[in-house]
């Protein structure tokens, strides 16, 4: 039963942080190259534009959900299981979600990268 709780918390972290990352990437793509914007308009209008983006705020909300799910998960299981399991699964789900929702061109090279990094994160946590 405890296993079930732990893995549902991990699943929650993975889903919420994937949604957060995808929305963040979408928001930034809508806003445009921040470096160029800053050169044209200065730093404050850029900050205002980012903070005024509904997609950005929704992304932050999902990241907050992910953070609190992580805290809850940590109260049920060891950090050495929860944190790396969530981080490495998120690499894989992010890659799939970027392909589906952001229409990114995820070629074999990027899939290998995601899987290698996910495996590496799992090993580092040992």
């Amino acid at each position, binding site marked *: 039963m405890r296993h079930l709780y732990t893995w549902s918390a991990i699943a929650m972290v993975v889903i919420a942080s994937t949604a957060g*990352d*995808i929305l*963040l*990437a979408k928001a*930034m*793509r809508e*806003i*445009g*190259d*921040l*470096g160029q914007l800053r050169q044209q308009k200065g730093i404050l209008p850029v900050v205002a534009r*980012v903070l005024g983006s509904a997609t950005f705020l929704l992304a932050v909300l999902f990241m907050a959900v992910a953070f609190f799910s992580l805290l809850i998960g940590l*109260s049920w299981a060891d950090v050495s299981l929860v944190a790396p399991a969530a981080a490495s699964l998120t*690499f894989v789900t*992010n*890659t799939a979600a*970027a*392909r589906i929702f*952001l229409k*990114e*061109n*995820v*070629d074999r*090279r*990027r899939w*290998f*990268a*995601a*899987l*290698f*990094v996910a*495996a*590496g*994160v*799992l*090993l*580092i*946590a*040992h």
Partner: protein
Amino acid sequence: MNFRKYLVLLSIVVFSAAGDVMLSRGMKQTGEIHLQNLGSVFSALGNFWILLGIVFLLVFFASYLTSLSWADLTFVLPTTSFSYVVLALLAYTMLHERISVERWCGIMLIVAGVGFVAGGPSHTETAAKTAPPKLPDAEFVEARK
């Protein structure tokens, strides 16, 4: 990708790893937080290393946002996962944590993963737009003759 963009990626790697190390150092000084007393987590905010760590992580977040404004998520994530390697090295040298053989293997896998994407295009939409024009097809060549 120009020099400025590489600097942004580098700053993601450095600031996230250094920020985490500072948080870890600060929390070790603050002491364990018990579930019955979760509010005591706020007392950690008075610690110098925690505050410096938060500043570093804010710089990391700003750099992360900047990179996403001109690069694909599937490029930024694997490339900047190099910060796990920097984190392990910082923990080894500054926090004197022991790094096992499994961890070194994990580090090698991440480095390999970074190598996979680093050679590719950072933004696939732009890459498609700036791709070299298709070679003239046979009909076109024929017509020119």
